[in-house]
C-alpha cells in the first residue's frame, strides 16, 4: 500500500534538493558586496514614494467576496455545459434550480445595496 507513494517521496526529495540547492549555491558562489545604496528600497529607480502598507477601502473586500461567489458558478457551468446533451432534462433542471437559488442571493445583495459603491 505505502510503496505506491514512494515515487511521491522521491519527487518531494528532488523538489527540495533542486529548490534549496539553487538558493544555497547562489549564496556560496555569487559575489556579495552590499552597500547602503544597494540595500535601500526604491521604486522604478527613484526613492520610494510612500510606505507599502497603506489602508485600502474595505469595500474592495465585499466586492471580492461577491465576485468569488458568482465566479465559482462558472466552475459548475463548464462541465455541465459539456455533458448537457447526455444528462437530459433532469440534468438541465437541476442546474436551473441551482441558478434560481443563486438569483435569490443576487436579488438580496442588490436590494441590500452591496453593489452600490457610494
Amino acid at each position, binding site marked *: *500500500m505505502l510503496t505506491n507513494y514512494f515515487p511521491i517521496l522521491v519527487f518531494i526529495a528532488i523538489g527540495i534538493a533542486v529548490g534549496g540547492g539553487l538558493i544555497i549555491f547562489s549564496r556560496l558562489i555569487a559575489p556579495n558586496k552590499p552597500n547602503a545604496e544597494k540595500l535601500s528600497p526604491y521604486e522604478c529607480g527613484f526613492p520610494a514614494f510612500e510606505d507599502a502598507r497603506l489602508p485600502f477601502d474595505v469595500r474592495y473586500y465585499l466586492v471580492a467576496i461577491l465576485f468569488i461567489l458568482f465566479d465559482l458558478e462558472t466552475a459548475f457551468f463548464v462541465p455541465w455545459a459539456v455533458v448537457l446533451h*447526455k*444528462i*437530459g432534462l*433532469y440534468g438541465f433542471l437541476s442546474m436551473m434550480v441551482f441558478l434560481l*437559488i443563486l438569483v*435569490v442571493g443576487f436579488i*438580496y445583495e442588490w*436590494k441590500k445595496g452591496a453593489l452600490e459603491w457610494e
Partner: protein
Amino acid sequence: MPVQVPDLTPAVPQIYVLIMTCVTLLVSLFASKKHSAWTYILSQLTLLGAIVLTLLYFHHKSQVTFHGNMIVDHVSMLLTIFICAITFFVLLYSRDYIKQHKMPNTEYHVLVLFSTLGMMILVSSYSFVSIYVGLELFTLPLYALIALRRDSAVYSEAAMKYFVMGAIASGMLLYGLSMIYGATGSVQIAEVVKVISALPSSQHLIILFGLVFVIAGVAFKLGAVPFHMWVPDVYDGSPNTVTLMIATGPKIAAFGLVIRLLAETMPDVQLAWSHALMLIAVLSIGLGNIVAIVQSNIKRMLAYSSIAQMGYMLLGVIAGTANGYAAAMFYVLIYSLMSLAAFGLVAMLSRDGIDIQHIEDLRGLNERNPWLAFMMLIVMFSMAGIPPLAGFMAKIGVLEAVIAVGHVWLAAVALLFAIVGAYYYIRVVKVMYFDDPLQSTRIDLPTGDMRVALTVNGLSVLALGIFPGILMSLCQAAF
C-alpha cells in the same frame, strides 16, 4: 445515458424548507418596515409545515434516495421533527429579544432557517458528501448569527473563535473521511459498510487512522472533552438568543452525525470507536461537572453542563446496541428540551437593558414571579436527574444500556459525577427560592404566547418524565 430522476417524495420537507426560506427572504426584503412581522410568521409557517410534511411521511419504512446520498428513516424523521419544533420555539422565544437588541430581523430569521435546513439534511444524509454539505450548511449560518451585530466586540470575538475552531474541526472530519474513502473506494455509507465488513481485520489500520480524525471532528461538534474549549466561550460570548439556538438544535444534529458516521458506517470496528468514545465520555462527564461548580456566569455554567450532558449521551452510543442508540437519542431529545427552556428563560428575561449573565441575576425569582421560578426549578432538577422528571428517565436509559453490555464501572463513574453535578443545578434553585431579591418589582415574560410556550416547554419536561413511554418507544422503533 440520461441521469435517473431520483424519488423526490422523501425529500419534500427539505425542499419545502428551502423554497420557503427563499420566499421569506424575498418577502421580507421587499416588505415595508411596518410589515416586518411577516418575516416571523413566514418563518414559523416554514417550520410548522416541515413538521407536518414529515409527520405525513412518518408511516413509511426507511427509504434511500438521491442515488444513495440521502436516507429517510425513522431516525431522521424523528430528529427532523424535533429540530423543527425546537427551532420554532427558539424563534418564538427570541422575537422580543431581537427587537429590543436591534438585531437585523430578516437576516436573523433567514439564517436560522438555513441552519435548520442544514440540520435536516445532515440527519438524513447517507453519504460522506451530503454529510459534509449538511454540516457546513448548519454551521456557517451560526457563525454569521453570532456576529450579526458586528459593532459588538464580544460577539465578534465569539464568532471568530467558533469559526476558527469549527473550520479546524471540519478539516479534521474531512481528512478522516478522505482516509476512509481511500481505503474503501466509496463515499456512500451503504457501500462503505459492505467494503469494511469484507476487509480482513489486518487491513483495518487505515480505517482506524481515518476513524481517529472522524471522532475528533464529531467530538468537536458535540462539544465533548478534549474538544470542548470553544463551548463556554461561544455560549458566553453570543447574544442570548443565539446561545439558545446553538445549545439546542445543533446538539440533535450532532447526534445524527454520530449515528450516521459511527453507528451506521462502522459497525465492524465498533470496538475501536467505542473505546475512544469511552475516554471522551468519561472526561466530558468529569470535567464538565466539576468545572461547572465554580462558574458564577449562568451561561458558562450551562455550557459546562452541556459538556457533561453530551458525555452522558455518548454512554448510550458506547453501548453499541439498538437499545443504547435509542437511549442516547432519547437523552439528546430530552436534553435539547431542557436546554431550550433554560436558555429560553435567560433570553426572555434579558430585556429593558438588563442582560441576564450571572446566576445572581436570578436572585429571589420566586418572589418576583413564582411560575417562572417553578419552570426553571423543573428544568434544573431534570438536568440534575431527579425523579420524576424527564432527565431522570434519560439518565436511567443510558446507564441501563452501558450496564447491559458489561461496563459497570462506566455507569458507576457517571453516577458519581451526576451527584457532583447536582450541586450546581440545585444552587440555581437555592438562589431563586431562598435568596432575597435585589429588586422586588415583578418581572414577567414579554408576551402571552411566550408565557404559554415556556409553560408548555417546562411541563413537557415533567410530562415526559412521568410518561416517557411514547417517546421512548418511538426512539426504540427507530433502531
